[in-house]
């Protein structure tokens, strides 16, 4: 299988007034298409930073990042936005739904930005909501849902565009274990259908759902556990 993501000597610094924090330090690894990778490590080791760069939300300060054969390090904001909206779906620990929009509208939003026609949108959204078993709540607002339900909506929103890659940053962090397992189940199913998944987690239990665990410390990879 081809590599979807090739990361080499990736660097990221944060400069505050006096100190310079090295968030990523010569990080190198690959992710193949269809893989399910978990990233683990202590708090502050640079996991979220890495995920943001892979998700094209942030630009690295050094090294190379090849996404689907294209060097994307140094892309401007607009190019990153265009690449992102067609290829990548995000799931966050804190769900990050838009409070002013209903469940249906939240899930519909990515399709609007990628310019899908209204009739097709309706079909896609309903399909996904059905799959996430949240169809009956389609006209509710996020505050009217439980955490587990909100995260299912977030997953629905992440996958509605059929992205090749899903990035999940502690997707179960705010959920109890039963809701957490549901979400992991969903991610596994998506992965089975061919979507590449990269997930940051603090839970060894959740990490077991993946094919491979990358362990990080102080901004670089220390070990790799191959599970399958």
């Amino acid at each position, binding site marked *: 299988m081809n590599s979807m993501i090739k990361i080499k000597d990736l660097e990221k610094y944060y400069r505050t007034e006096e100190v310079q924090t090295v968030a990523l330090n010569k990080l190198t690894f690959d992710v193949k298409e269809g893989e399910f990778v978990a990233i683990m490590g202590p708090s502050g080791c640079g996991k979220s930073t890495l995920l943001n760069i892979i998700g094209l*939300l942030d630009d690295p300060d050094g090294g190379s990042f090849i996404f689907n054969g294209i060097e994307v390090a140094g892309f401007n904001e607009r190019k990153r*936005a265009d690449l992102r909206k067609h290829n990548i779906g*995000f799931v966050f620990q804190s769900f*990050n739904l838009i409070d*002013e*929009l209903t469940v249906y509208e939240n899930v519909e*939003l*990515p399709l*609007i*930005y990628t310019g899908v026609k209204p009739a097709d949108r309706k079909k896609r959204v309903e399909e996904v909501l059905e799959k996430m078993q949240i169809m009956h709540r389609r006209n509710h607002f996020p505050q009217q849902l439980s955490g587990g339900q909100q995260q299912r909506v977030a997953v629905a929103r992440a996958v509605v565009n059929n992205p090749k890659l899903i990035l999940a940053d502690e997707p179960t962090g705010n959920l109890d274990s039963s809701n957490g397992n549901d979400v992991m189940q969903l991610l596994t199913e998506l992965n089975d259908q061919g979507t590449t998944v990269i997930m940051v987690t603090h839970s060894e239990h959740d990490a077991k759902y993946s094919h491979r665990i990358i362990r990080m410390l102080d901004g670089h990879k220390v070990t790799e556990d191959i599970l399958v």
Partner: protein
Amino acid sequence: MFKNYFKIAFRNLWRHRLFSFLNILGLTVGMTACFLIFTYVNFETSYDNFHSKSDRIYRIVADLKTPTEVINGSGPSWAVAPHITEFPEVETAIRVMQNVILFKKGNVKFNEPEALFADPDFFTTFDFPLVKGDSKTVLTEPLSIVLSETLAKKYFGDEEPMGKTILLTGDQLPATVTGIMKDFPENSQIKGNVVVSMTTITKKFNARLNDQWANYSPYAYVLLKPGTDAIAFEKKLPGFLEKWNGKEMDQLQMYPTLFLEPMKDVYLRSTRGGFVTGNIKNVYIFSIIGFFIICIASINFINLTTARSAERAKEVGIRKVIGARKTQLVLQFIGESIIICMIAFILTIGLIALLNNSFNDLSGKVVSTGIFNNLQYVFYLLLVALGIGLLAGIYPAFILSSFKPVTVLKGRFATGANGNLLRKSLVVSQFAISTALVIGTIVVYAQMSFMRNQDLGFKKDQVLVIETNGDSGAKALKETLKGLANVNQVSLSGSVPATGNPSAYSEIENIKGELQKANLDLFFVDFDYIPLYKMEVVAGRAFSRDFMTDTTQAMVLNEAAVKMFGYTSSEQAIGKEFKQWGREGKIVGVIKDFHFQSLQQPIKPLTMRIEQGNMDYLSVSLNTSNLQSTLATIEKAYQKNIPNRPYSYYFLDEFFDRQYKSEEKFGTLFLNFSLLAIFISCLGLLGLASYSTMQRTKEIGVRKVLGASVPNILNLLSKDFLKLVAMSFLVAVPVSAYFMHKWLNDFAYRINLSWWVFALAMLIALTVAFLTIMFQTLKAATTNPTKSLRTE
């Protein structure tokens, strides 16, 4: 996509009802105020635009140079218009004179204060359309009358007025209705509801008037041929006067100069008076106020929107993660701001429609017949609303859309310090504008009150003035009134303060012993006048029945006149000689200067002399006990002695103050718009205060747990805002001081801009701001801290 934006926009508006309300209210009020000002300014600048030939019509005005001064008069002498047509450049020349005329139709009397006498070309030169009659001939014959439609209806009802006879003046001359004209438009500098042919005067009464070069009176207009260079033409006028009148000028030592005022400039820009006068300064002042108000409203908008940006940061982050481009977000936020402006636009239209009549009342004339009669204005307003939406939306839109998703989604987002700085400077400018307007209002009102309460130098209270219009029954009426119980004194005169008075070519012996020529204001009075008005005699004596010669050979001067002829003390003037309008004699007394004109004018040199005929005004000094019955008795006496004229009277103090009507209107408008400006600024302040309080809920909670008292917290929260308001004061003071100083310069007698004006304005601004902030902060300061801490 747009549907989604709309949805988000409306839900946001609803979720943040207070902010939306403040935003929309501020904008609506601001746009309404601005629009009303626009209609006012637009109306003021539209005077006489309706005359198709207005570019070629000029008003002829005259300066009169006497040995002592130059008088800026308005009308040229009677002979100018009939003779100026000798120039090939002149198409027509028309004299127009306004007069009070008494009309009698059958047994019904009508007193028309706005009657006009006009030369025959009146209707062919000006665009006052005739409904009936031929514009070329309606005013040719003496005793021809053209009635306005309204007046025709009033006099004749459904009867056909054309060709009917109406009796004119006390002499009851039969005049014929030769035409009916449309009522003059409101924005006409020439005011009148009936036009009588000028030939009535020049042919019937005084055939020599057309050749009188030293007799000044009516307004005069010329219509120049197309292509005439008015400035070049004006240069020919001195020669014209010299040719016709040179000899007389030298003999009288009175040298007139003629000027042409473009008709369109007369109303707003001429300083020489007119039927109605406007003031270009007021137009500028109001335009500036309008602009300020719309600025204040837009600033609110920007402030409230950016203040809330932190709350919307999460939404921005999510949209970006999902794939929104920056431009899409910018468009979304601008769109939202436009939606708010559109809501405000619709409300504004409604409010304007509601306020139309009150605004007309406030400005004292029919400035607008209603917004729906002027659809192009609705369109302009729409453009303005869109413009504000765009301009006020752009800044917040760029701020919001430039948030980095990585930062905001982490929740690390802090309200930017730079945004705060901008918001602060905007608040400062808002309050600076408002405070400047408050200062302006205080100055205008202080000046008004100063003028009303100024000692005018004569008794103006409890003096009833009856208009006798020179009727032959006036003297008999005076005798009757003298005998009434509650009447103290009665005096018959040609003028009373504020009515205006004639001026006369006079020669008075000066300090060097020569007869000095001058054109002097003149009051015709009787023996009772000076005592009735309690005017102070500073030298010599008042007129007295004890001196037989007083009726024909005596004159009283005011102090200004004494000074004019070089005397250093009033005593020196006593016994000096005078010649004036066929009379020769001696100065018998000097009275203290009194204000016979409004306080805008300096007190001019004045002469008084006894006249024994029937004059225009009967002043009656009253005892206020049983006022109602006294007034009724007076009216009855009037009807008996002057049966031919409708009874018309007023109290002198009210009448005198009526001269300040336009200043008063100006003051009221100024006050209203200042209130609006303050109101809108406070809306913004309220929004900001409630926002910052909301943001500091946790801080307040912690402080209270640590032992801060409610006043501590209030102090903490209000201090910043009050500092801003105080800063704005520093900006407002020099600006308003400069402009109000200029405004006050129009008044010969005026207040000084003293410190208390500014102190009061500062106090008002601080109080209003403090109350506004209190409203929000008190709530926060008194909440139980456990509540606010739990929200985190």
